[in-house]
């Protein structure tokens, strides 16, 4: 075992969108070795235990990591599930606010004494789209999209219901600042295989560096260990690819 693998996991306060102080959950390596940082974006149901476990996993992998509570603005101090419900009632997380909160989280990571100045982002489910959005809007060093719907595609076609508060990112993709790793389930309908293929085509045409993997026998949310959608083989391979991708792009 390494002698310098100790990290502190704790609730912290960071400066988010509009200069507001927001809650965040961090895993902070305790030694002085310079290292990269990872911003973790939780899914729409909120700032929850499952995503905190992912933050701790990045600490275990040797990265400083932080997850902003995206619903803090809607109900400061409330229980995370109540805050998520309040945010949901307001229509979810506005894109501009998301970018502001990720910017603050990246700045928090880069200001740590043992930061090497590099920061990546990863998001799951709705956070997958938000990870791409952040990477198109901010000077990040690497981005991971785990099955984010509506990076491409038309939300208004879903079961006849308009998908309010979310739009595809076609107009933003030319501004993608960093390499993108995409991890998808082949059986997922949102994003569908066709939507993933369309994103692949667009990024190729734009000359953007990316790496996509679609796992057979996996659908949406295959990383979520406490849900029926969990697929051990896909999740295991996915974590290895995440480790390799961030290892390549967030090292000094």
């Amino acid at each position, binding site marked *: 075992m390494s002698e310098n693998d100790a990290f502190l996991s704790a609730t912290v306060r960071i400066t988010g969108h509009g200069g507001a102080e927001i809650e965040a959950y961090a895993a902070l390596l305790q030694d002085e070795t310079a290292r990269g940082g990872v911003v973790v974006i939780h899914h729409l*149901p909120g700032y929850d235990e499952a995503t905190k476990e992912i933050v701790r996993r990045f600490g275990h992998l040797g990265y400083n990591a932080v997850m902003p509570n995206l619903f803090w603005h*809607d109900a400061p101090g409330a229980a995370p*599930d109540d805050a998520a*419900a309040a945010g949901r*009632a307001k*229509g*979810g997380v506005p894109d501009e606010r998301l970018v502001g909160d990720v910017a603050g989280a990246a700045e928090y990571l880069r200001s740590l004494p043992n930061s090497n100045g590099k920061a990546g982002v990863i998001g799951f489910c709705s956070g997958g789209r938000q990870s791409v959005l952040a990477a198109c809007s901010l000077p990040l060093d690497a981005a991971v999209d785990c099955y984010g*719907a509506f990076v491409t595609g038309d939300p208004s076609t879903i079961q006849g219901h308009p998908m309010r508060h979310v739009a595809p990112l076609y107009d933003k993709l030319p501004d993608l600042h960093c390499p993108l790793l995409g991890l998808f389930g082949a059986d*997922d309908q949102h994003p569908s295989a066709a939507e993933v293929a369309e994103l692949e085509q667009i990024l190729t045409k734009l000359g953007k560096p990316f790496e996509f993997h679609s796992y057979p026998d996996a659908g949406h949310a295959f990383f979520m260990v406490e849900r029926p959608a969990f697929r051990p083989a896909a999740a295991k391979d996915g974590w290895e690819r995440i480790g390799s991708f961030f290892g390549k792009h967030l090292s000094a």
Partner: protein
Amino acid sequence: MCTYITAKVDTEGSGKGAEGWFPLTQTTVYFDHPVHAAAEHTLNIDFRNPGRGAGARVAVELTAETARALAKAIMETLDAVPQDLT
């Protein structure tokens, strides 16, 4: 997926939350990943009173089958009540 769809209903009534009974002003209905239920997606209902804070909430997460049965039971119950009572 996170469906992003949320329906809102202006609400008159009361609910019993973590700190006892309180008046309800709003109900939100959505289909998404649950916080607690053992299903990939559930029909979630939050009976709320935002004026009393985010914690003034009675939450349920129901399987789609349960939600449909509940909606049917609500309509059947209301239909069976003498009209002058509703």
